C-alpha cells in the first residue's frame, strides 16, 4: 500500500503540467499558409502557436462572420478550470499521503480517478459546446455567406478531435502536452488504485 500511496501522490502532480503546457491544439493549414496557423488551448486562455496567429485567425474568420477568439476574461472557464485543477491536485495528493500512511483505502484512489474523469468529460463537453457556438454563431452580415450543397448555411465548427477540411483550410485538432500529462497522471492513480486493491487482497 506504500507503493500505491506514492503513485497516488505522483499521479495528480502530473496535472500541474496543465499550468504550463496547452491542453489542446488546433492547427489550420492552407496552400497560402505553408506554415500553418495554430491555436493552443490552455486551461487559462487561448494562445497562438506563433505570436500573431490569433490575430491572423481572427482576421481570416471575419470574412465568414465568425466572432473573434475569446480573451481569457471573456470566458468563465478560463478562471474556473485552473481552480478546479488546483483543487483536484490538492485532494489527490492528500488522498495519496493518507493512503501511504494507511489512513484511507484504495477506494479513495478510485474515487478520485472517477471524479477527475467525470470533470474531464464535463470539460470536454463544455469545450465542444464552445466550438459549436464559435463555428455556427455567425454574423448575419458576414462578407461571405456560404451554403452547403443542400442549401443550408455552411458552418465552421472546428473538430473536437481529428481532421476536417474547411474551405481552403485543413483543420486538425488534437490533445496536446498538457492533456497527455493529465492522461498519464490519471493512469498512475488508476494503477495506484489497482496496486492498493491487490495489497489489500493479499493482506486478507
Amino acid at each position, binding site marked *: 500500500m506504500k507503493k500505491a500511496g506514492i503513485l497516488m501522490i505522483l499521479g495528480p502532480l502530473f496535472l500541474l503540467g496543465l499550468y504550463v503546457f496547452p491542453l489542446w491544439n488546433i492547427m489550420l493549414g492552407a496552400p497560402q499558409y505553408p*506554415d500553418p496557423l495554430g491555436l493552443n488551448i490552455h486551461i487559462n486562455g487561448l494562445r497562438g502557436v506563433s505570436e500573431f496567429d490569433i490575430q*491572423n485567425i481572427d482576421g481570416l474568420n471575419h470574412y465568414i462572420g465568425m466572432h473573434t477568439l475569446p480573451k481569457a476574461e471573456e470566458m468563465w472557464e478560463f478562471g474556473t478550470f485552473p481552480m478546479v485543477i488546483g483543487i483536484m491536485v490538492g485532494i489527490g495528493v492528500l488522498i495519496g499521503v493518507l493512503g501511504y500512511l494507511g489512513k484511507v483505502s484504495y477506494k479513495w484512489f478510485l474515487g478520485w480517478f472517477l471524479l477527475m474523469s467525470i470533470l474531464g468529460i464535463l470539460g470536454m463537453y463544455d469545450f465542444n459546446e464552445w466550438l459549436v457556438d464559435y463555428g455556427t454563431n455567425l454574423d448575419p452580415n458576414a462578407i461571405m455567406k456560404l451554403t452547403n450543397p443542400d442549401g443550408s448555411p455552411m458552418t465552421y465548427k472546428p473538430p473536437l478531435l481529428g481532421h476536417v477540411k474547411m474551405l481552403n483550410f485543413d483543420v486538425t485538432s488534437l490533445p496536446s502536452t498538457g492533456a497527455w500529462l493529465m492522461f498519464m497522471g490519471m493512469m498512475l492513480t488508476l494503477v495506484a488504485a489497482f496496486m492498493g486493491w491487490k495489497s489489500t487482497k493479499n493482506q486478507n
Partner: protein
Amino acid sequence: MKIYNHLILTFGVALMLFSCGQQNQSSNGALSSSAAEKVYVAPGEQDEYYAFLSGGYSGNLTVYGLPSGRMFKEIPVFSQFPTSGYGYSEETVPMLNTSHGFVPWDDAHHPDISQTNGELDGRWIFINGNNTPRIARVDLSTFETAEIIEVPNSAGNHSSSFITENTEYVVAGTRFSVPVPQRDMPINEYKGNFKGALTFISVDPEHGHMAIKFQLLMPGFNYDLSHPGRGKSHGWFFFTTYNTEEANSLLEVNASQNDKDFIAAINWKKIEEYVNNGGGTKMPANYAHNVYDEHSHTGTSTMRNEVLTVDPTKVPGAVYFLPTPKSPHGCDVDPTGQYIIGNGKLSADLTVHSFDKMIAAIEGQKFDGEAYGIPILKFEDVLAGQVKSGGLGPLHTEFDGKGNAYTTFFISSEVVKWQLGTWEVIDRKPTYYSVGHLMIPGGNSRKPFGKYVVAMNKITKDRYLPTGPEMEHSAQLYDISGDKMELLYDFPTHGEPHYAAGCPAELLTSNSKKIYRLDENRHPYAVTSADGSKVVRDGNEVHVYMSTIRSHFTPDNIEGIKVGDKVYFHITNHEQDFDVPHGFAILGQNSSELLVMPGQTKTSVWEPKQVGVWPFYCTDFCSALHQEMQGYVRVSPANSNTELKWSLGE
C-alpha cells in the same frame, strides 16, 4: 518512383533539346540531362545559394537563387523605385540626398557581403554608387537599404565597395582623379595637380553605421579596382591603377602608353595607427550621410562638413607601388592572402604578386625609384609568377578555395581555370559573350564555396529571343566541382551586373524578417490601432493617419480637403502576417504608389489640383476582397467651408 521521375525528366529535357536545337546551332551541343538536373530546382524547393548581382545602371541590387538563376527581388539602393515607393515616399527621399541635392539614380557596381574573421557573416551587403560617389549598406535581415554615405573628393567611385576581413572598413577608391578640394582650374593642368582619394569608411561592428575614418590622397592616377588582404596580408589593401601617364584626354590611347602601371599596396593598419595618434589633416568637405531607421521606418539625411585626409608620404612604410603590366583592371587576392593578382586588361597574361616577396623587398629596401614620393618596388622582386593563359583581355579572378583560380577574359570571351603556385592552365570554357566579372559564392573571402561560378557578360546578341535593340545582359552558370568546368545554364540579368556576391542560403534564411512588428513602430505618424486613425489640418497641410488591414482602409471616406492643400497620407499596415503588404495609390498622385509591408508606415504626398471626388485604392492584390479595398476623398474649392471629416462604414 524516383526512377520514374528521372525518366520523365530525361524525356522532358530530350524534348527541349530537340525543339531548341534548330533555333540555336551555336549553343552548347553537349548540354546533357545531367546539366538540366543540376540547375533544376523543383517547384516548392529552394535554391542552395543566394547571389546578389549589382544592377549597374539600374542603380539597384538584384537577388537571385543559384543554381536556378531565378530572380527573387530587386532591392532599390541608389535609384527611385516606383514599385515600393523608394525614393518617392517622404521617408525614403532623404536616402537619395547628396551634396548635389536629390540624386535619384546611380551606377551600382560591386556588392560585398560583410565578413567576420575573413568568412561571410551575412549581416549586411555593401555596394558602391559610381557616378555620384556613394556607398550603401543593405541590411540582410530586411533586404532593404539601411544607409548611404556620400564620398567627398572622389569621382567615379569604382574601386569600391570592398570590405576588410572583419568588416572594419568598407573601402572606396576614386577612378577619376580630380582637384582636391574641387576648384576652378584648366583641365590640361591635371598632371601633378589632381589627386586620387582612397577612402576608408569605418563600419560600426554592432549597427553597421558608416563613418569616413580617413581619405588617403594619392597621386592623380585612375584607381580601378581593389581588394583587401586577408589572412597573412590582413591589414593591407591593394588597388590597381591605370593612367599612370596622367592623361586628361583621349585616354584610350594616352593612358595606354606605359608598359606597366601599378598595384598600390596600402598598409591601412599603419595609417589607422597614424590617424589614431592625431595624424592627418582635417579638410572642409560637404557630403551627405543618410541613415534609415527600421523602427521609425524613416530615413534621415545629415550633411557632414569635414573629412580627415592623409598625405601618403607623411606615413613612412604605408604605401608602395607594385609595377603591373598593361593597365590592370581587376585586383584580386587569393583566400590565403598570399597572392595578389593583377588582371592586365591589355595583355594576354596575368601577373601574380607574392605578398611574402613584397614584404621581403620592403624590408630589403629594394626600390626601383619612386612616384610622387611613393616607393616603387622592383617588378621581379615581387613577382610570384605569370599565367600564360593564351586568352585575351583578363579582367577579374575568383577562387574556389581548393587552390584554383578562375579568370575572365573579356576579349576572348572565356573563363580560364588555372592553378595557384604552378600557374598552369587547367581548363577554359567559352562565355556568351564578352564576360566582365565572375562570382563564386564567398570567392572574395578566406572561405569560398567552390561549387558554382557565375559569369556576367556584357553582350547578349543571340542568347535569348530578340527583344529589339535593347536586351538584358546574360549570365552563365558553370559547375566547378570537378576538374573541368561544365556550362550548366544561361539566364538573363537585370540592368548591367558588374560584380556580384553570393553565399549559402542558410546563412540568410533564418534571419530574414517576415514582418515589421507593429508594437515596435515608432514612426511619428503611425497609427497602431484602427481607432487611432484621424485627419488633422494644419494650415494648408493635411495629415491623414490611415491604417490598412484586409480589406479596408481606415478611414475610407474623407471630406473637407481643398484644392491647393498638401495632403500627407501616412499609411500604416496593421497586418502582422507574412507577405501581406497593402498598396496605396490615389488618382493624380505626382509620385508613385506606396507598397507598405506589415507593421510598416509610409507616406505619400498628394496635392489635389481639381475639385471632385477622387478615389484611392490598394494596389496589391491582398485578399479575396482586394477589389473592395478602396475609398474616396472629396476635394472642394479652395475657398469653400466644407467641414473636415473622415469615416469608415458610415
